[in-house]
């Protein structure tokens, strides 16, 4: 147990997404990524939107659904060591506002991307697959589920 801690929160990771300004920073980060990709001269606008969508979903999948545990030691005897950040959020309570926010953002991004790529077939397939890869792990039925033993330990 860490003496000199300013709160009685067992796992500070659970409250990170609820902190002040986190949602705004998240949106600003996506905007920044999009602007960086737009500045590259030889990529067309639809490709840029698809790339933004793909990179955002890939990063979200890696950070929220692949990386397990906490980057610091917690006094909960390793209860969160096998949980991804999504499963740790709010101690596993479903449908909190942060979870809803993180579910809605990929959907909005997908809708915008579909519009800007003019519903082209290749782009559509890529974007839909990527959206599914990010939405399916967020379902409450898949809380703690590891398919085919991937990422179990």
């Amino acid at each position, binding site marked *: 147990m860490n003496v000199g801690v*300013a709160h*009685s929160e067992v796992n500070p990771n659970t409250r990170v997404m609820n902190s002040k300004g986190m949602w705004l920073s998240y949106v600003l980060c996506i905007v920044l990524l999009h602007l960086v990709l737009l500045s590259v001269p030889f990529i067309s606008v639809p490709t840029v939107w698809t790339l933004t969508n793909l990179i955002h979903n890939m990063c979200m999948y890696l950070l929220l659904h692949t990386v397990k545990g*906490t980057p610091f030691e917690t006094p909960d005897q390793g209860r969160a060591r096998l949980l991804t950040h999504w499963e740790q959020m709010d101690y596993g309570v479903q449908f909190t506002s942060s979870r809803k926010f993180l579910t809605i953002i990929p959907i909005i991004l997908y809708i915008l991307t579909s519009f800007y790529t003019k519903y082209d077939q290749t782009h559509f397939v890529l974007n839909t697959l990527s959206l599914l890869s990010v939405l399916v792990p967020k379902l409450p039925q898949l809380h703690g589920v590891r398919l085919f033993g991937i990422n179990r330990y």
Partner: protein
Amino acid sequence: NNNLTKVKHVLLLSHSQVIQLIIVGIASCQQLVSHIVVQVFSPGNGVASRPQKHEPFEQAPMYVAVMTYLGFGIVTLFGYLRDFLRAVGLEKCHLAQEREEQKDFIPLYQDFENFYTRNLYMRVRDNWNRPICSLPGPVFDLMERVSDDYNWTFRFTGKTLHNVINMGSYNYLGFAENNVDFLKTVADKVNQYGTGVCSTRQEIGNLSIHEELEGLVANFLGVESAMIYGMGFATNSMNIPALVGKGCLILSDELNHTSLILGARLSAATIRVFKHNNMHSLERMLREAVCSGQPRTHRPWKKILIMVEGIYSMEGSVVRLPEIVALKKKYKAYLYLDEAHSIGAVGPSGKGVTELFNVNPTDIDVMMGTFTKSFGAAGGYIAGKKELVDYLRSYSHSAVYATAMSPPITEQILRALKCIMGKDGTTEGLRRIHQLAENTRFFRAKLKEMGFIIYGNDDSPVVPILLYMPGKVVAFAREMLERRIGVVVVGFPATPITEARARFCLSAAHTRDMLNQVLHHLNEVGDTLCLKFSRRKYTSRPDLCAETNLELDS
């Protein structure tokens, strides 16, 4: 049809919101009435008769939070990069690693759990655990140390930094001093009793000096009886299990100290946490506990214990004692008050928060405190009714298994207590208490005027200045050390991610010169590092302004 349903939803929401507003309005009217009651019925002009201070927890502007996350994001990215370099072999790895043949087993050194330690803490480690080589009075001497490999190892240069101003020690009344006259009685007692007791209180470790101290502590606090223990942390963690058990409910404040949390967990009682200093949250929990009882069986709780602290050490906020006592009487709960930081430091004669709020000490069921902070010694006490303390003498784990307080420490506490109570024939104790109160008011007023965001009550000698960004936390600590001022800084994960802070602990031994020096340097560092985030206009003469503040703060 869609529009109609939308309007219906909006109306329903606002309907329940209106009900909530009415309830909150009634509660705040009650609060205002209780304020007025306190004001009308408290005689005199002292601290206790002032209406309860508004304790703002001011939020920084939004760009500060965004920059904080940006800082953490960049550090995390660089952390991953460095980990990759270490794994590939381009960078030397200073940590323990498994041998080649063990790499296929389950990892022994959990890699991700010390990500933060490896990649953030190690880079800035020189701001903590600085070795000092004098006593921690108002000024101290630091051993200068440098690092050749970016803080993985340290090396002492042999030089000493003299007279660094100490703003981190809990030396509230200045008893951490090396005054020969004051320490003479302690030396005598070492000759008489020896240095160690080598036994528990219940076996042959009960010395007459312990009884003397217990009587004096009970006298000081205005209660029937008290018991002392050798270690402050253990006073909480070993006695709460003796007081509550299975089938009891503990309502503990959000920001309670680790010792209280550990004691509550060890006791096997049900723990519910209420929002910091929030009386609505506490009352709601009390009502729910009294109405519903234990979780599944709905039997009534055997005991409900409300655990609060006098001064919270990381926020500097003071507990709302009169309101909690009123709540406890209404719902028939017990109150455990941990006065680790407030005993000796607040109140017109140093008797703690009970004196600050003019609350009768017999209203508080268990008064606990430590001698580590204001008395310059070690150990803790629990005080209350005679039956309670007699019970603890038999049933407390500390009394049965831990060694008793050692005689020189007991004598140090005795002479510090006598000094504070005035029983040594001088007014030194009172002078120190007044000096501390003056220093506190002066320092806090000046900081607010300069534009820093600070938390806490105006009377508390613990002053946290909010720094927010991880880079600024480190830069602040190093910059202050260069200017010969030693400060304590804390960041994530010890604080919430956006609330990294530097904590200043004022002392009666700080002279006005030292405080002016510190304030001058704080001003400069605040300008250099852009730390003045406060958006409130603060004047040091509020009586000249005609505005009244009726904010609902909860």
